[in-house]
């Protein structure tokens, strides 16, 4: 059942709660999808790539082994492969599945259908934090996790950069699961990074 839904030009955020009879508490699922037009654009390109490969193989086999045609068909095959590779790196959706007292699962779903997931047990999470990341050209908000035994922060959304209004409900849900008081955490973080 959809509890919350937010969207802007690039991203759509959907929060779903699934409760099962065997579990005392509901599983919380937060999805961030890349918006429609970009996805269909890539699907179109994938279809186009497939067509190119088909055309190239037809030209190669049926029109004989003339040099220009061969070159053209190789170009078509190569560009088709490049587009296919690109679609493997293009992200369609990233999700956070929160299972209370058990852990959280971070999933990245690519356009090619591949899903990369990582499970983090609840005991390993120290704190979820909202951090402002500054690069030489821009500044954006990201949601990260402090994990036990690791030096670096773990990003919850590795590829996508959803806006703050979408990150805040996820952060609050993570805080609730870990059982830390939100306002106390903000003050602690301020003191930790000041000076």
């Amino acid at each position, binding site marked *: 059942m959809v509890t919350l839904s937010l969207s802007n*030009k690039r991203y759509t955020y959907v929060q779903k709660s699934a409760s099962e009879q065997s579990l005392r508490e509901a599983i919380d699922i937060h999805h961030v999808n890349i918006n429609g037009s970009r996805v269909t654009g890539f699907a179109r390109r994938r279809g186009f790539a497939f067509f190119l490969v088909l055309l190239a193989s037809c030209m190669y086999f049926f029109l004989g082994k003339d040099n220009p045609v061969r070159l053209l068909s190789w170009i078509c095959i190569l560009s088709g492969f490049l587009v296919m590779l690109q679609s493997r790196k293009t992200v369609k959706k990233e999700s956070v599945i929160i299972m209370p007292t058990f852990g959280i699962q971070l999933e990245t779903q690519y356009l090619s259908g591949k899903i990369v997931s990582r499970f983090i047990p609840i005991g390993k999470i120290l704190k979820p934090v909202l*951090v*402002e*990341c*500054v*690069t*030489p*050209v*821009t*500044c*954006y*908000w990201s949601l990260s996790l402090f994990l036990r035994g690791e030096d670096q922060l773990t990003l919850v959304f590795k590829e996508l950069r959803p*806006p*703050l209004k979408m990150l805040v409900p996820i952060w609050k849900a993570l805080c609730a699961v870990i059982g830390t008081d939100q*306002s*106390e955490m*903000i*003050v602690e973080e*301020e003191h930790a*990074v*000041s*000076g």
Partner: protein
Amino acid sequence: MAEPPKLRVLMVSDFFFPNFGGVENHIYYLSQCLLKLGHKVVVMTHAYGNRSGVRYMTGGLKVYYVPWRPFVMQTTFPTVYGTLPIVRTILRREKITVVHGHQAFSTLCHEALMHARTMGYKVVFTDHSLYGFADVGSIHMNKVLQFSLADIDQAICVSHTSKENTVLRSGLSPAKVFMIPNAVDTAMFKPASVRPSTDVITIVVISRLVYRKGADLLVEVIPKVCRLYPNVRFVVGGDGPKHVRLEEMREKHSLQDRVEMLGAVPHSRVRSVLITGHVFLNSSLTEAFCIAILEAASCGLLTVSTRVGGVPEVLPDDMVVLAEPDPDDMVRAIEKAISILPSINPEEMHNRMKKLYSWQDVAKRTEIVYDRALKCSNRNLLERLSRYLSCGAWAGKLFCMVMIVDYLLWRLLQLLQPDEDIEEAPDIFLHHHGEKIN
């Protein structure tokens, strides 16, 4: 819930903490006092080593350490247009109304001021140092300053001498330049509870041991004074390239027991060094303002200083003895200081300094400058270009080209990433018990 801030100021400079100096101190104290007056202040500087990203300092002062590599003397590598995207992002996300740049030597400051003007923000510049006119470096620097200040709303200088210097270097109209002196934290710099005995008179010197700060003058003055007054000793704090010359001087005249070299003194320990002395000696060859003598006077020390730059404007005549930057004249000044030492009351000096200088006063005066800047009319691109044309025959045209390209790049950025797409950062107000996010 706290009421919304009246002004939202972005302080830009290459020089900020953890680097230590006069400009850094000025930006920090001014920002803290402006925060107490209810305004929002954000500081933008370049990353220092690992210190990169967003940091919050006391009072909720937000600092952006932008990961641009510094190249010479802590200034960012000048790319002219490279900083446009990040400056635009910071200005939009913090909803800035006034951009305040510090120090003519800071490339980040000049670039940020240029981009802020292109995007239509109000701009204020503070000059902290005096510069020359004759050498090649100064000529180029002055041309850059002329470009930067051609279209500025208001400027601030720290002394009347500095104002004259800035106006001559940049061709700015004097009516646009305000004079707001620096101040000193009198709560931190208090005299010793028990004044050290005057049987042995201690003269304290705390400065970087470089040519500009008159370290060579010290090498001449110290042996002469030690010979004339057997009951005088020197304490020298600070480090630099001229340290070697001072050590040689100690060896040559066998003054190891009369001249104590402390090495670099962290700012938190400066007061404890000052209160061991009776007289503070400043031998700078050039100084726009000189906060060091303010700190010394606040601690109840009588000051002997070279009459250069803005130094005569800083302290009342009965708290300072001035001399030309010549060893004999300085020795005469030290003699005079020693003779008037018995009439000095450190507590009374400290109380007078409390009334004369305070950062709260500086912040209130700076607020007036910001209000004046906000009242300046908005000018369109063509009107602004005409100001740049007057900078010189060739330079004027070059500056116009630079501004036109900057304008076009800004429009291109707006197409690629519209203004609405830049998320606004929430204001975080730090109160005594927890805080609220707006």
